């Protein structure tokens, strides 16, 4: 009888009470707690493993591309170039230890990896803490002998555990590819820490507002603010104090492979603990399904935009679109305002220009080339937003709400076609808006070398990719609805990264040609590549058509 805890031990010998004892053991809180924790793990493990593998692969690719591009390490001149370049300082961070592949990976890819794990943490946390409640599945769990406090805390503990796993994957990939263990551990710690911090913010949002999407939206807003604060902090050496204000900049304080400032470990550990504690406390202050900042009082009906499937699809998705619009416009205006600084800095020194040419970055040497590079980066973000917009149709189907539409005189073609048209219009609108904001940013900073038409043409150049990926998403929805968002988004991120990582690794050109971004000309520096633009648009429209037809021929299926 040494392992009492594992075996249900009958206290009384009669058969009836034996069963009752076993049953009461099964109903015990400790057992229920294990079951809840197991449930959270079930709901997160696949995504977390996928993230861990993806981040490790990203690290390995970065190390390999560094070795290919800089066989002798980054020279002091190159280092200076990266350090002084205001754009790379603000986007990627102030470089440290670029003489090693590890330092280069942290600087070149670290910011993007941070963003990826933050988005993962945001989506996972809001799904566990709000999605489960919205779907009324949390009711079932909380009917067991488990307190709401434990329910929330254990979900966050599992998210934290997954974050540590992802951080450990990054650290192992760095260490195993021959980089210093200390830097690897610090980088892994930073990645895990920033993920848990965002998870903590998301957890607090989940207590303040109801509805999964709303909590995710507010957390995304917080993430965007953190990114802008980091840009501000890294813009000049005089503002490094501001790094403490943004979780995304704590990694810059930590500087793995540079001169590590271990004080950064404090916010990485303390802030998530405080946020999680706050979220758990707030959870005890509210009802299941309730929220602290929202009351569900009735209101006068708003009967506009309820007239057709199309109007209603617009009504229910305009909030998300507004979020994308505000975020992209703010970022584009900031980048636009930086163009003149960037150009002044480039014009100052012939050495830099020569170096740019050697590195093959010559398109970024001119103002218009620089605008083209920026436009394609925003283009990629807009492409992702379009994939998510088509994914809203899948959410309607998954929740069973599409049935309420499709069991009325609404054809599948009309319903899905409406979503596809709205996705395309949203994409177009975001392209125009981003171009306008970029141009306004230039003008506001007193820089007039970028015309309205330059900015517009640069953004609209991305339209074929928007159509292509939108079409791919509709096609996926028609054929494999469960992969509607996952497949296109993964492919777009890989394709976009491939255009940067592929050339230094001398990937074969046919492989690079698979990426739609390879086929975009650097508009407005060079004219629009008409052939590839038309081909991609036609391909996108064709995939959209096939997807629409495939949807007509398949079952409407829930989650």
């Amino acid at each position, binding site marked *: 009888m040494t392992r009492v805890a594992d075996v249900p031990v009958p206290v009384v010998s009669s058969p009836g009470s034996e069963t009752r004892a076993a049953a009461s053991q099964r109903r015990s809180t400790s057992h229920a707690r294990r079951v809840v924790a197991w449930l959270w793990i079930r709901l997160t493990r696949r995504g977390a493993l996928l993230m861990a593998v993806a981040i490790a692969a990203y690290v390995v690719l970065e190390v390999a591309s560094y070795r290919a591009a800089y066989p002798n390490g980054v020279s002091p001149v190159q280092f200076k170039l990266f350090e002084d370049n205001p754009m790379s300082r603000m986007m990627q961070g102030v470089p440290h230890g670029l003489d090693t592949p590890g330092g280069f990976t942290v600087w070149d890819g670290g910011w993007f990896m941070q963003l990826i794990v933050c988005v993962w943490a945001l989506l996972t946390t809001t799904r566990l803490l709000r999605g489960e409640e919205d779907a009324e599945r949390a009711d079932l769990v909380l009917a067991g002998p488990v307190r709401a406090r434990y329910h929330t805390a254990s979900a966050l503990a599992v998210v934290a555990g997954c974050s540590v796993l992802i951080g450990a994957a990054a650290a192992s990939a760095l260490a195993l590819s021959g980089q210093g263990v200390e830097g690897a551990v610090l980088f892994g710690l930073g990645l895990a820490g920033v993920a848990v911090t965002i998870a903590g913010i998301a957890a607090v949002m989940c207590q303040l507002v109801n509805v999964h999407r709303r909590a995710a939206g507010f957390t995304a807003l917080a993430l965007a603010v953190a990114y802008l604060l980091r840009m501000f902090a890294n813009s000049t050496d005089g503002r490094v104090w501001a790094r403490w204000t943004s979780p995304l900049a704590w990694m810059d304080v930590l500087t793995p492979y540079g001169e590590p400032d271990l004080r950064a470990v404090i916010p990485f550990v303390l802030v998530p603990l405080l946020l999680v504690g706050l979220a758990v406390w707030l959870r005890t202050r509210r009802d299941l399904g309730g929220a602290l900042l929202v009351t569900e009082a009735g209101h006068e*009906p708003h009967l506009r935009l309820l007239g057709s499937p199309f109007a209603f699809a617009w009504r229910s998705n305009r909030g998300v679109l507004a979020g994308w619009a505000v975020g992209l416009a703010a970022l584009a205006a900031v980048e636009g305002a930086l163009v003149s600084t960037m150009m002044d800095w480039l014009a100052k020194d012939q050495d830099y220009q020569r170096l740019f040419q050697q590195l093959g970055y010559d398109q970024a040497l001119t103002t218009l080339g620089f605008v083209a590079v920026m436009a394609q980066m925003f283009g990629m973000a807009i492409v992702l937003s379009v994939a998510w917009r088509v994914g809203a149709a899948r959410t309607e189907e998954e929740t069973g709400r599409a*049935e309420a539409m499709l069991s009325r*005189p609404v054809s599948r073609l009309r319903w899905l076609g409406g979503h596809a048209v709205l996705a395309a219009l949203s994409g177009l609108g975001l392209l125009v808006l981003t171009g306008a904001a970029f141009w306004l940013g230039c003008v506001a900073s007193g820089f007039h070398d970028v015309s309205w038409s330059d900015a517009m043409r640069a953004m609209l150049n991305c339209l074929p990719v928007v159509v292509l990926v939108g079409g791919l998403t509709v096609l996926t929805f028609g054929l494999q609805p469960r992969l509607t968002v996952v497949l296109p988004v993964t492919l777009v991120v890989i394709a976009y990264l491939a255009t940067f990582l592929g050339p230094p690794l001398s990937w074969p050109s046919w492989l690079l040609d698979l990426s739609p971004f390879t086929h975009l000309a650097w508009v407005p520096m060079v004219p629009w590549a008409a052939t590839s633009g038309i081909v991609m648009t036609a391909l996108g429209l064709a995939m959209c058509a096939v997807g629409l037809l495939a949807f007509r021929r398949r079952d409407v299926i829930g989650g």
Partner: protein
Amino acid sequence: MATTPAIRTEGLTKHFGKVVAVDHLDLEVQPGEIFGFLGPNGAGKSTTVKLLLGLLRPTAGRAWLDGIAVSDVERAHRSVSTVPGDVALWPQLTGAETLELLGNLSGNVDIPFRDELCERFDLDLSRRIRSYSKGNRQKVALVAAFMTRPDILLLDEPTVGLDPLMEAEFQALAREASARGQTVFLSSHLLDEVEDLCHRVGILRAGVLVEVATLEALQRLTTTIFEATLDGPVPSFDDLPDVVSVEPTDGGVRLTVAGAPGEVLSRLNGAGLTRLHAHAPTLEQIFLTYYETSSGQRDAVAAAHGVTSGVPPSDGERS
């Protein structure tokens, strides 16, 4: 047949992978009829309704609503409304907004009737769907289904979550609809509901339509169960064809009897009857008659009850 059937299926079949959800369903429901579609959970009732709505694509077979192929949803759905088995609505909309949206999608809303329905169901439309109870969501779906006065109502377990008062209101509505010539297809696992309401009943088991009977035939099928406590020994009932089963119990006997019970009672009386409890079979027992007995036994039971003639030949038994 002169009139077009409101609902017709021909060899309608649906497979999900290896699972056969609906197997060669042949069905005709006439205009103005209230047709009960009875079966336990997982029998394929909801799948059938979704096939009729064109939400699922049949593996084989065809179906028509008012003579229009169900795949032509824009035409077929003009005269159809439904209450789905799993009511899913937009949590952010209020009840009023939901009815406005669904009404606009269907067209032809009878506004005074809609208001009357809301009143009869005692529905507060100012709250958001999110804050509604399950019963209230069900009421919204019911109002949305009835308010367009459709020719055909496909109702998948529509009274789930309703209290008895509201259930009675629903039954009244269904009868009124039928009296006006509207067809009601009522899928249910509640025998009482179907018995009270329906003109004809189809019984579905594991995707197979095992029986279609008029209400009278169904009632003839239903037996009475006598639980008797006896002083003396249990007499023999072998020579009585109406006694379907005899089970000895502690101090007596349990008999399942179809038809007139006079002879049975007198024999029990002769055997020293001290206590008699009679009750109608529960739904489980009716299902048992159809589900658990082999087809040979079922035929014997049916023959004993003389109901085979009550089964329309086109919808005959399969097994």
